[in-house]
């Protein structure tokens, strides 16, 4: 079983990203969980959400404390939240940032090869015209986890079409976000 932790700020869509990710992974035959950690609900407050993925049914309902992947939607969270807490040995951190993996690794005190970056805010602003970096970060995570992007894109489109049947205009933009971040995420080489 692996755990994924999403760090975001209230309003950035960290919860939605975790839910969408769970739905996207489901067709691969894995058992999935997605759940948010709710604090006081206010825009801009640091929030977390989680995924568990396993080959077997997941019955655990306690907090996810040992992530293999940490996804950071807002780089300023690295200043105020311990984003590496519980990260398993060799675990990977994916950051929405314009800095290089080496610079971020130095800040977090980890190996640069564990760090992946993508300018998710830029992608979101260019595509959906909103600073909602959640779907780009979803695309980046799919790349880092080496999942089948084609089948996930097909499936995610169906899910979004159902979910946003009252807001169909957001679907294409978000699909483009996932795809572009998938292509643009980089690590240290």
């Amino acid at each position, binding site marked *: 079983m692996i755990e994924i932790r999403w760090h975001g700020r209230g309003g950035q869509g960290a919860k939605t990203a975790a839910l969408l990710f769970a*739905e996207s992974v489901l067709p691969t035959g894995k058992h999935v969980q997605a759940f948010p950690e709710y604090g006081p609900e206010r825009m801009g407050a640091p929030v977390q959400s989680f995924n568990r993925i396993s080959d077997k049914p997941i019955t655990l309902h306690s907090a996810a404390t040992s992530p293999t992947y940490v996804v950071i939607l807002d780089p300023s969270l690295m200043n105020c939240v311990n984003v590496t807490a519980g990260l398993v040995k060799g675990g990977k951190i994916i950051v929405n940032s314009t800095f290089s993996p080496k610079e971020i690794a130095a800040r977090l005190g980890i190996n640069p090869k564990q760090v992946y970056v993508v300018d998710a805010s830029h992608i979101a602003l260019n595509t959906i015209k909103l600073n909602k970096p959640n779907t780009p970060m979803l695309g980046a995570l799919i790349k880092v986890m080496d999942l089948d992007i084609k089948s996930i894109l097909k499936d995610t489109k169906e899910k979004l079409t159902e979910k946003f049947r009252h807001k169909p205009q957001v679907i294409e933009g978000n699909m483009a976000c996932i795809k572009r971040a998938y292509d643009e995420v980089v690590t240290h080489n």
Partner: protein
Amino acid sequence: MIKPIYSKGKIVAKTGNEAMAEAMRQIEPDVVAAYPITPATEIVQIFSQFVSDGIVKSEYVAVESEHSAMSAAIGASAAGARAMTGTAAQGLALMWEMLYIASGLRLPIVMAEVNRALSAPINIHGDQSDTMGARDSGWIQIYSENSQEAYDNMIQAVRIAEKCMLPAMVTTDGFIISHCMEVVETYPDKDVKKFVGQYKPQRALLNTKKPYTLGSIELQDYYFEHRWQLAEAMNKAQDVVLDVAKDFAKTFGRKYGMYEKYKMDGAEIAIVVIGSTAGTAKVVIDELRKKGIKAGMIKIRVFRPFPAAMIAKDLAKVKAVAIMDRADSCAGTFAPLYTDVAAALFAHNEGKMPKMENYVYGLGGREIAPEHITAVYDKLAKIAKGKAKPSNKVEYINLRK
């Protein structure tokens, strides 16, 4: 792809709230009256969207409070409609007097309830204080470990309630299940509709050909007799729950009972627990069993009616048992589940009791992790070996005293 248990089942990812709303869509009750409250809001919010999109033909009554929600459900049910509602915590508390009227008038209303702490201090997270307070209200109570059970329990609750002429609440732990997306197998609409069947009330106020008075005054002369009828209906509800579960297993393949026994065969130490924590405990038990420790668990599914005789039998051979309550009674004695289990053991086992401990945990959503449950089993193992004694008072888990 994960294989469904039912041949026509569909594997989807749903939160507890989504799963309950989905069950409501398939049940398609005549009337839903509800008022939003965290963490149950989504259930009726999603359902109201089904109504406005014309996906269901149900009448949705947007009321101004939970007291009105229950009142409207009572009115609708008395009129002959299949009525449902949904709420949590303070909302359930505001429904209070109407809860007793729903059961007293023997109206089979079904409620999707999300367990949440009661204020004060204000807290929106999961514990079972709300429904534990309603345990004497004459409502059938069915608790769910996960989203799948929430979905299955909603479907079964309709039939149970209507057969018993008792209202029923189906609960999930707030946020832990209500907002946790998990793998859920859903069944085709027509199969669910067939299982639930059409509601044919014995009497309905809207049947003008057979008019009657409902809700009349009864003083010293007949009140007691009608309250006894209510208690008797609850006594008989256990058979109905088991019958419906049997038919559910035959139809959809998933087995349910009054409670679930997990590794109770040959168990020497056991816990009794309700809701989502049972899932976490299963992981702990598997680890303990690998080490040769004979640990088991009873997960209560139906708390009202309480399966006293059955539980007493299953716990008779256990040396030490910990009753884990996600609610405190503040009574100077013990928490609700402990009180019922202790009474059951005392009444049915002729004084042969396992050693018992009572733990209160997780109030206001406080974390309950595998290591906390492991610590409970460690203490039980010591008690079973005679190396420790039960404390004979409520113990608190993960609390800073």
